[in-house]
């Protein structure tokens, strides 16, 4: 097959049939801003930020949804392109209450970054009235429609990534809204709170309620780890402030979950901070548990196991390890039972 080539900002580059202009540009590390584009999903061309100029075309073209063609002459950053993007940014800023002062997304907001890099410091349009109140009802996800730019990434994440099919576009014109079911709250709809919509939201329209006012991107350290729930083993970013996890997101491009999480992985992390944690060794005395030092508790257990083994043989002791805990913990426990206690009476809930 003939090689396909096009001109990208004056340079001739090769591409593969089926690639969009945006994909070709990104493969050559030419940055084209995009808001609605979500990797791996059907391009919607909704936001118009990714427009480029193609020689001979009547109008600017959305690069995310236009297939590259042989011989195209594309300019990704012409004056005309920049002017158009500035106008789009202005319109988006006027479409809602994009007040960054207490917005969770400030510093990590695609719209804020675009406005800054395109120097949009004055908005010529009145801010549109906001017909839809913020949904604060559930403990996990805040839906602030006044910050929503209707890019539809959340819809793509719900429909095409997670395939939960809970949210879609609703209404028309100035009352257009991302709706759950027939415009219900997340609670009342088919939403399963996987929170993928929050993860892909480019602005502060969808945010984690538990993380609110706990720290913005610049204040948070990222620690990669593995989810403590099911056997899929999703890779998580723990967003940590002063040693405390404030939110969890999926690690994009990681095996096995490629950025995806479920409700437990995303919102079920804070059990470790419960005040009900066991915090000190306890020993039962006269039927009641009392606090003890490690030395006393360890000594008591060692003595009891030693006495039992001496009196009744090694197989009179048995242990159950934990399928929730680390490999290294299970290794140590079976080593203790085998090498020290001299019994193979060690098991875990593999069979249940």
């Amino acid at each position, binding site marked *: 097959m003939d090689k396909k080539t096009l001109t990208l900002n004056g340079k001739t580059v090769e591409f593969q049939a089926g690639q969009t202009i945006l994909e070709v540009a990104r493969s050559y590390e030419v940055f084209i801003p995009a808001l609605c584009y979500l990797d791996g999903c059907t391009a919607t061309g909704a936001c118009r930020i990714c427009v480029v100029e193609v020689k001979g075309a009547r109008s600017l073209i959305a690069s995310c949804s236009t297939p590259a063609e042989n011989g195209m002459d594309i300019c990704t950053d012409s004056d005309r392109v920049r002017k158009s993007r500035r106008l789009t940014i202005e319109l988006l800023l006027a479409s809602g209450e994009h007040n960054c002062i207490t917005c969770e997304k400030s510093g990590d907001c695609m719209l804020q970054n675009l406005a800054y890099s395109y120097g949009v410091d004055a908005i010529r349009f009145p801010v549109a009235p906001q017909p839809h109140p913020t949904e604060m009802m559930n403990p996990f996800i805040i839906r602030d429609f006044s910050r929503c730019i209707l890019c539809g990434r959340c819809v793509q994440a719900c429909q095409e990534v997670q*395939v939960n099919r809970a949210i879609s576009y609703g209404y028309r014109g100035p009352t257009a809204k991302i709706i759950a079911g027939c415009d219900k709250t997340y609670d009342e709809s088919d939403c399963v709170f996987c929170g993928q919509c929050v993860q892909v939201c480019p602005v502060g329209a969808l945010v984690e309620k538990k993380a609110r006012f706990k720290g913005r991107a610049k204040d948070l350290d990222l620690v990669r780890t593995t989810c403590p729930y099911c056997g*899929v083993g999703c890779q998580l970013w723990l967003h940590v402030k002063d040693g405390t996890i404030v939110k969890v997101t999926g690690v994009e491009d*990681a095996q096995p979950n490629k950025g995806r999480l479920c409700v437990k992985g995303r919102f079920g992390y804070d059990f470790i901070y419960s005040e009900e944690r066991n915090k000190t060794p306890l020993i039962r005395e006269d039927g009641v548990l009392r606090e003890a030092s490690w030395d006393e508790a360890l000594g008591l257990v060692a003595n009891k196991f030693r006495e039992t083994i001496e009196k009744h043989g090694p197989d009179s*002791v*048995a242990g159950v390890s*934990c399928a929730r805990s680390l490999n290294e913990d299970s290794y140590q426990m079976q080593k203790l039972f085998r090498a020290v206690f001299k019994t193979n009476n060690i098991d*875990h809930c593999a069979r249940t």
Partner: protein
Amino acid sequence: MTNSFGEFSKARMFFVIGSNMTEAHPVAATFLKNAVMNGAKLILVDPRRQPLADFADIHVQIKVGSDIAFLNGVMNVLINEDLYDKKFVENCTEGFEELKLKVMDYPPEKAAEIAGVSADVIRDVARTMAETRPSMLCYTLGITEHTCGKNNVMSTANLQMLLGNMGVECGGVNPLRGQNNVQGACDMAALPNVFPGYQKVDNPDARAKFEKAWGVENLPAKPGLMIPQMMEGLVDGKVKAFWIFGENLANSEPDIAKVEHELASAEFLVCQDIFPTETTRFADVIFPSAGWSEDDGTFTNSERRISRVRKVSEPPGDARPNWWIFKEIARRFGHDWKSNSAQEIWDNEVSVLAPSMAGVKYARIEADGLQWPVPDDAHPGTCFLHREGKFTCGLGKFNAVDWTPPAEVPDEEYPLVLSTGRRLYHYHTRTQTSRTGLDYLLPEETADMSAADADALGIHHGEMIMVKSRRGEVKVRANITHQVPPGMVWMAFHFRDACANWLTNPVFDPATLTAEYKACAVRVDKI
């Protein structure tokens, strides 16, 4: 899993049996749904109209516990209509003649009668599977939690070998493991019959190897007890001192009344946990543990991927890492264990002693983990097992098995089948999820039942009812749903008061001692 989650989105066909993946392994299910949306076929075999049914080309709603009859029926059609993979069967397997003889006893009409489905659907499944290959067979506890669990597993392997779906990408037999590190706990040999890396304790060479590595003599050769035997040992006095690490047996084992009697019978019980639980109520000593994110280490997922777990904070109060607790007990027995961190334990002991993990070192799993077998430092890991039909033991062995019914089937007194499982918004006994706000999404247990059964009993959606079995009774809210077929009640074990395990039957697969959580007989009464 013989294969990997990464293959889901490329697969052309799935055969999902006894796996409510959408709720129990939600992220895995997303990749399956992606594949289906892109044209892959899905055959779902499940008594309930669970969420994946909306995506299935064929949903076979078999009766609880009829899996083997159904699978033998499908294999009967594959053989009789000459639709199986003869080349694979000849070159890579043994025992075909016995399998053939056995499944000839299960013509579609007979299998259909046992499974409560039509003979045509059995033929349809067989033909569809023969038409599109390979297919990924996925199962979960719907297969294993039966008195015939081991035979169920072997039947799924029989089917995949007959179709030549083993040892290829997007094929295989894929049990989705329930807990985050149940695979790892097996690999690490928290099992009564093996050392780490599945080296058998009754093999003198393996014992000699571990005696040398651990600096000890006379490692025990006799396989130890499995959990149900340990529990019974507490009552009959064979087990005097019992150590439970991070398990809430008082809620998770079948027949809570029996389990609590067993725990109460322990002469000395040690519990090591992050929270007080229904089980720690019976403890003589409680060790407070470091929890997830309070220690470094590794988990191994269903697809054998060893991934890093990282520490972000110290455990609360005086809680300590679990490996440290075991090491300290060993020290009090005069054993000085050198490794002093999870990384030292892994890099200097586990990967040295377990050949299938020899090439896994912490330095190699900083980002994505590695899937064992990883025999050496240069090995990239193994996405799917039995490549080119080469099985670990040489030839893949067909195990011809007969269908057997559940130990307890409905009768006049207890006319309904109770089947149990997990729900999306909670995890097992809620030790963790009850402390995360998830109760908001699921605040209580329900007894899920069909409209037909509810109507017959005059029960309305949402009313409190009594579910009774020969073991116990629970008061619970009725949830009338199209997911459950007539004749069945479905419950989970997330909530103590209405825990399904007050009702479940403590009968076990004779080989694996897995309990029959998926089937017992109950009655439902209006209150």
